Every structure is written in C-alpha cells, then in structure tokens.
C-alpha cells in the first residue's frame, strides 16, 4: 500500500530526479558500450576507408579482410593457442589448489589450521617485489618456460578464503558421517565437499580463467624472448607499444607500421590491425560474459560481504 502511495503521488521533485537519473544511466550505457562497438566497427571496415575517419557505430565498407590478415599471421595463431592452453591449465590447477588448501583450513579439528591460515594470509601483505622475484624465476629455470604462467600465481589467498568460507557453511555432520563410513579425506573432498561447492567453484573458476586470459605482464617480463610462448594479450601489447612509442617521433601514430606488416602496409593499416586484434583478444570474455556475469557478482558478495 505504501508503495502505491509513493507512485501515485509523484512530486515534481520525483519527476525531475527520475528524468535526470534515466538520462545519466543512458549516458553511462553509451559511454561504456561505445568504445567496444566502435572498435568492432573499425575492425569490420575496409582499412583504406577507415583512414578517412568517421566510423562510429557500424562499418561503412564492410569486409572481413582485416580478420583474414590478422588470423593468417602465424604468431597470432600460435599465441591464441598458448592463451587458451594457459587458461585451461591455470584454471584447472587453480581450482585444485584452492580446494586442497581451503578444505584442510576449514576443518576445525585440523591441528595446523591456525599456523597455516596465518602462513597463507601473510602472503597478502609481504612479497619480495619485482627484482627478487625475477631472479628467483631465473634461478628456478622458469624463464622462457610455459610454467611461469601457471606456478607463481597458482595459490591465491583470496580464492582460498572464498572457498573456505563457503565450505564452512556445510554442516560438520556431513564430514563426520563420511568418516565413520571409512572415507578418506581426499574422497570426502571429491565426493562430498566439491559437489556441494559448485556455485563457489564456478565463481573462482571464472575469476581464474579471466585472470589467465587477460594477463600479459608475465609474458612481457619472463618469456618475451620466446615467440612460441607469446600470448594474444602480449601480441596486442606489442602493437599498442608501437603505437604509443611513435608519439616521440611524430604526432601521427596512425603511421606506425608494425614490422611484420610492413610489406602489407599498402593494404592494411596499423589502426585496423590494432582494432582487429583488440576484438580478437576480447571476444572470449565478451561472449561468455552475459551468461556468466551473475557468478562474478556472487564471488564478490561471497568474498567481501559475507566474509
């Protein structure tokens, strides 16, 4: 009833407020989506035509040529494979590590629960920093190795905390009765705990997968001299780099030509390559996002609010 009143008695203030609110929200939608739509439009437009400018929401001279050129480059093809591989391996092992640590830490009778919890929590505060980290990776022989993508960040304290707080909502009696039946800890984890944790598993899986797919700095730092280990994000970063650095030589960064494309410079422009690569590197996230975004949010509320 109260609600009814509120709607029927719209004061002028309400009306002005709502109008401004809707305008602002629509403005937000435009500002958020426009850069994506624009770059997709440029990537689908004829490269020589794009130079003239004025491509906004849709391509003027539609072509798939840019994609054909970009995807036919061997290094892009290869980098896509590495990106997919690191995402798959990193996610699988990341989930495993989170559960293998979170489960023991959730058991109130585990004698090492307290010291180990502190041990993992401390990693959120202390770290050796960039240079010592670099030398460690070097002395471990992980430079130019695929595993440098996986191992250093495998154990995430944040994910452990999220999983642990979820497991602790499962009644102790589940574990107790399984133990009486003679099940070992690994079996309890895989057959009882994990099936009950599907929502939180999905959440951390998405976070780890997005993190793996999006990361480029580890490639930049540790494996940049080995082309076979390059990732999509790193290839895109290289193109971006060429564009930004050209500021010092000329104001016209559209004229920066990536060395590999020099011979094709007559037919494809750096701007078009950059746009197309951006779309290729974003597409997987854009495609899964609408279906999975509710899990992302669950993750935040699980981790942040519920504690």
């Amino acid at each position, binding site marked *: 009833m109260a609600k009814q009143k509120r709607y029927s008695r719209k*004061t002028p*203030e309400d009306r002005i*407020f709502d109008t401004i*609110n809707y305008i*602002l*929200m629509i403005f*937000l939608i435009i*500002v*958020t*989506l426009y850069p*994506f739509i*624009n*770059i997709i439009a440029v990537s689908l437009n004829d490269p020589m035509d794009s130079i003239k*400018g004025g491509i906004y929401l849709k391509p003027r001279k539609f072509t798939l040529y840019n994609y054909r050129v970009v995807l036919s480059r061997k290094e892009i093809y290869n980098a896509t494979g590495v990106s997919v591989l690191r995402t798959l391996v990193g996610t699988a092992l990341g989930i495993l*590590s989170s559960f*293998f*640590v979170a*489960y023991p830490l959730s058991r109130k009778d585990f004698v*090492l629960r307290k010291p180990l919890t502190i*041990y993992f*929590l401390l*990693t*959120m*505060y202390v*770290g*050796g*920093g*960039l*240079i*010592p*980290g670099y*030398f*460690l990776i070097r002395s471990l022989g992980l430079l130019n190795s695929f595993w440098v993508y996986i*191992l*250093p960040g*495998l*154990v995430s304290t944040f994910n452990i*905390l999220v999983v642990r*707080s979820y497991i602790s909502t499962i009644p102790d009696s589940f574990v107790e009765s399984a133990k009486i039946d003679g099940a070992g*800890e690994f079996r309890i984890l895989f057959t009882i705990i994990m099936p009950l944790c599907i929502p939180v598993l999905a959440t951390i899986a998405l976070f780890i997968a997005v993190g793996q797919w*999006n*990361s*480029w*700095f580890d490639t930049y730092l540790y494996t940049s001299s080995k082309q076979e280990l390059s990732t999509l994000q790193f290839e895109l*970063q290289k193109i*971006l780099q060429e564009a*930004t650095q050209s*500021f*010092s030589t000329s104001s*016209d960064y559209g004229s920066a030509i990536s060395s590999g494309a020099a011979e094709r410079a007559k037919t494809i422009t750096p701007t078009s390559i*950059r746009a197309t690569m*951006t779309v290729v*590197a974003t597409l997987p*996230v854009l495609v899964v*996002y609408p279906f999975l*975004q509710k899990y992302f949010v669950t993750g*935040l509320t699980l981790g*942040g*609010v519920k*504690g």
Partner: protein
Amino acid sequence: MNEFIPSITKTGSSDKRKKTTPKNEKKNRQQSPFFRQLGRQRSLLFMCLPFVVLVFVFNYLPLWGWLMAFQNYKPHLGVRHSEWVGLKHFKDLFSDKSFWLVLRNTLAMSSLKLVFGFLSAIILAILLNELHAKWFKRTVQTISYLPYFISWVVAANLVMTALSPEGGIINEVLMFLGIIDQPKLWLGTPRYFWWIIVFSDMWKNVGWNAIIYLSAMTAIDPELYEAANIDGAGRLKRIWHITLPGIRPVFTVLLIMNLGWILNAGFEHQLLLMNPIVREVAEVIDIFVLRYGINMGRYSFATAAGIFKSLVSIIMLVTADLVVQKLNGDEEVL
C-alpha cells in the same frame, strides 16, 4: 580499488575467529599429543603440502632477495658472494631527484583515483538504487561492470582509440560542441595524463565498485524510507538522511583499507599508455623499479626502491587493519 576485498575478508573472518573460539581447542591439544593428532590427520597435511611449498618458494623465498639492496649485486656472483655496501643504495635513492618525482606521481595518481573512484561508485550505487524499473536497473548494472573483466591491454587500446587525434570520439564530440577548435593530442600532453589515467580507471571499475554499496543499500530497512516519506521528506532528503548513513560503515572500512594501498597506483595502466613525452608525469614506483632493475641492470638500486615501497605499504596496511578492527570492535562482523 579492488584490493580491498581480501583484506576485508581477513578482518571479517579469520581474525575474529582467532580471538574468540579456540579456548577449548587448546585444551584438546594438551590432552592428545600434537604429533599423534597430526599423524592421524596426515592426509589433510599431504593435501595442502604441495601448495605450502609453492607459496614458500614463490612468496617467501624472494624475501631473501631483499639482501640484494644492501650489496652491489652481480648476477654471476649471487647473493652470497656479492660485495656488501650497507645502505648506499638507499642513500642514492633518497638523493635521486627522479625518485621523488616518481613518488609524487604515484601519490598523485592513487589519491585522484581514490577520490574519484569512491565518488563515482557511490553516486552510481545511489542512482541505481533509485531506479524503479527492475529490468532497466539490471541491464544498466550488467553493462556497467563489463569493462572490469577486460584486460588493461584491451582497455588501453580502447582509450587510445577514443583519444586519437584522427577521428577519436573525444575530439569529435568536443569539436562538435565547440569546446576545442582542433583535435588535441591528449596522450602526448603531460598535463592531461593523470586525468586520462583517473578517468579510464573510473570507466573500467565504477560498475564493479558500486556493487558493494548497492548490496549495503539493500540491507537498509525500507520502513525508514516510508516513514521519511510520510514526514514529507523528498527524494534528495531521503538519500541524504537514510541512504548515505546506511552505507557509512561499508564506506569507512573501504576507505581505510584503500588508504593502506596508497602506494599502489596500479602500473599496467600507466606502462601501457605512457610514451617518452609524458614519462615524467606517468612513471610510478613500480615502473621505476622495472626500468632501473630489468632494463638498466641496476638490480640493487631497484630492489632498494622496491623495499621502500613494500615497507611503507606494510606499515600502512597493518595500521589500516588495526583501525578497522578498532572500529568494528563494538559491532561484531561475524
């Protein structure tokens, strides 16, 4: 802005539990010897042992490398055989003009990000909270946190496209409105750089950062709004007197935690968008460390800069943590 989540979780769950529960746990432990119980729980230990080792190697072992800062480190000699020089590199660091410049950049960008990040997230949360149409609210929300999930490489590309002097949308719109009469070279002008960083950071994170305030707003008792309505309070008054006080606890905690992260201005962002012309205003501590350490081979000097940052951050984080715990002292979190 997003680093706060782990820290909150920490103060929320483990610390409280640490203090309140384990009285009787201790008694149990005295009755049955520690090692016998551990032996019985060895499969739990085996389960997490590989990851304990991994964390030791990748998180704790690098601390050993801090010794490099007190040496003239030579990679072929290693930490054990390099020459010790005491605090020389720290002295060099503090007398280096470019270090102070970098520190200024770091503090400036992270403070601007903090202020604008908080303001934009709170305003967005309030506006979303005031939307009546559920479907519209959900749509706006879903769209608003999309940019959070793209990489900084992609985001930097989008920013560059938007700011391009050749038909970039920002120049086009400003010219259309008559604010500027010819395209500006935004990314090549030092005085715009901080603002480009702040606004692109806002673009990327505002939707995500608003979520936590929105969920705090849903916890506000709707009767408060009805009562205020009957008393004749208008929209803005209700927001001012009910919504804002309602999110104050969350706001305070987040603010303090973020102050603890003040030396983390983010660095991918700057590294990706900067160019030689704007380097003087763009370089933050992490980029400074990267440049001296990896690119120029001054390992010890760069490590000293890294240690400076780590120490300040640890002190600020622990202080922030204590303050939050004190604030939460009377209102139990869990």
